[in-house]
């Protein structure tokens, strides 16, 4: 039994929206990072489901690249959050306000 592709798209859109909601409401930088990961993985669900739907491997291959890049992004992000903590003693993204619009 196979699942129709539109259900995968619905799932990925739900995951994407949960991630977006997290990005917009969370103040903790680490939770922000996790929410972004959700959004990236929503794209991966789509890519793999569509690769199956279209019958080519391009999407699956790209999903592998996306995962690697997401890991690299987290590494850089955690580095920045670490220096943030050293300078501000907090990982709340609303605390650093040395600059104003």
């Amino acid at each position: 039994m196979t699942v129709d592709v539109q259900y995968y798209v619905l799932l990925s859109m739900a995951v994407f929206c949960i991630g977006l909601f997290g990005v917009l409401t969370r103040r903790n930088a680490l939770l922000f990072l996790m929410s972004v990961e959700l959004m990236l993985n929503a794209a991966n669900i789509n890519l793999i489901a569509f690769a199956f739907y279209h019958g080519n491997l391009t999407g699956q291959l790209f999903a592998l690249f996306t995962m690697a890049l997401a890991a690299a992004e987290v590494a850089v992000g955690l580095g920045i959050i670490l220096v943030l903590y050293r300078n501000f003693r907090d990982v709340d993204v609303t605390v650093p306000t040395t600059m104003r619009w």
Partner: protein
Amino acid sequence: MAVLELPEWMALAPALLLAGTALVLFLLDSINPRSTNRTLFAGVAVLGSLSSLAVAVWFTAAGVGATGIENYGVIDLMGGQFIVDQLALYFMIIIAIVTALVTVASHDYLRDHTYQAEYYSLILLAATGMSMMAASNSLVTIFIALELTSLPSYALVAILKDNRGSVEAGLKYFLIGALSSAIFVYGVSLVYGATGSLQLEDIATNLDVAGEMGGLLGLGILMLIGGIAFKTASVPFHFWAPEAYEGAPAPISAFLSSASKAAGFVLAFRVFTTAFPVAATTEVIGVDWTLAFVILAIVTMTVGNFAAATQENVKRMLAYSSIGHAGYVLIGLAALSAEGGELVMGAAMMHLLVYGFMNTGAFLFVALAEYWGVGRTFEDYNGLSKQAPFACAAMAVFMFSLAGVPPFGGFWSKYLLYTQTINAAADNTILLVLAAALVVNSALSLYYYSRLVKALWIEEPILERDRLAQPTGLYAAIIAAAVLTVVVLPAFGPVADAALEAAAAVVA
């Protein structure tokens, strides 16, 4: 001038040279990790970027990407994942010039920094990503090149680890960057779902089978625009720009606001001309995507210029002015649906080249002021011309050129953009609004640019200053940028022709 005997992958040499230089810097650093021999590291970085520039110019002169019997034609690599044509080489040249200017200036700016080799190799890795972006021809390579540009840039903005402003800027840049790249990759997945391909030409040929998934395709295109708006610092993803540019070390602000923006635009030009030709895409998704760029262009230039006019901090003013200039360049995309749109796009590319010189120069002057430690606001810059007349004269050139005052380069590129937009408006009257917005915003921008020139040359200093040092590297970079801004004038004709030709080749 023969490049025939070179293997095909060598067409990417401008980008590969940058990557190789970054690796050489890593190697030098691993031989002696404690070394802070900044002359060696900066020298290697400058050498690498200049050789990339030389190769890109040589390829252009030898006719890579140009059609005709004596030329080499467009070079396709790795099954169409990369493409080296005139557009790619044109942007590789811009990126290499900005990288060279920034690395020369960094030599003095980073005089007390502990991590010298890391800094330069990160700059070169980011430049590699930008060069790759210019040549990418598939959404896969585009996304990878985009991340290769973004990740080192986040680290570079936050590289002053004990400086609160720098860390805060890095955090904000990273958060918005991560969000926009997630949106971008989701857009890529939707485009893939609708067309079944990630290679740009294949997407264009599969557009007609995407019929029943037109909605997904439209949403995907919208999300791609979001990712591009982040890279080019356009509305609605421009919030990071003032913060990141203000907090980052000034040479990095110069690098991001000139080279990174140019790379974002080449991506937009490539994706929207190759993968989503206006007529075919409109048929599938039911909306003309140039409309989105019309709105974005007007909003971006207005927001950028009005916000710049209210700033007291010079670096922040330049950051908002760079948003305003992104708005001008967006006209190149907005006009694509009209007849003669490729000429508008060529004019926008020309503006990006001139902007690369004058904006880098302006940020490097701010770097010089930070090196002196004179302060950050307009008042702090009062009367600097008495102590540093050459640098201040160069700054006046940059300011008037950015505002679009003749006879500097900025005037000619804006004038070309304006006339081409008016010509294309014969086909699509909405472009008249864009041309009017361009003129009104340029007039407004003269106010805040000339305010800085007035502070430098006319006002009396508030405090007595000691004699100011004259760092060679920073001075050399600023003077070089000023000379390039002025020299563009006699060279304008041929360079503009090259830009227009490159644009026409992509659109056709």
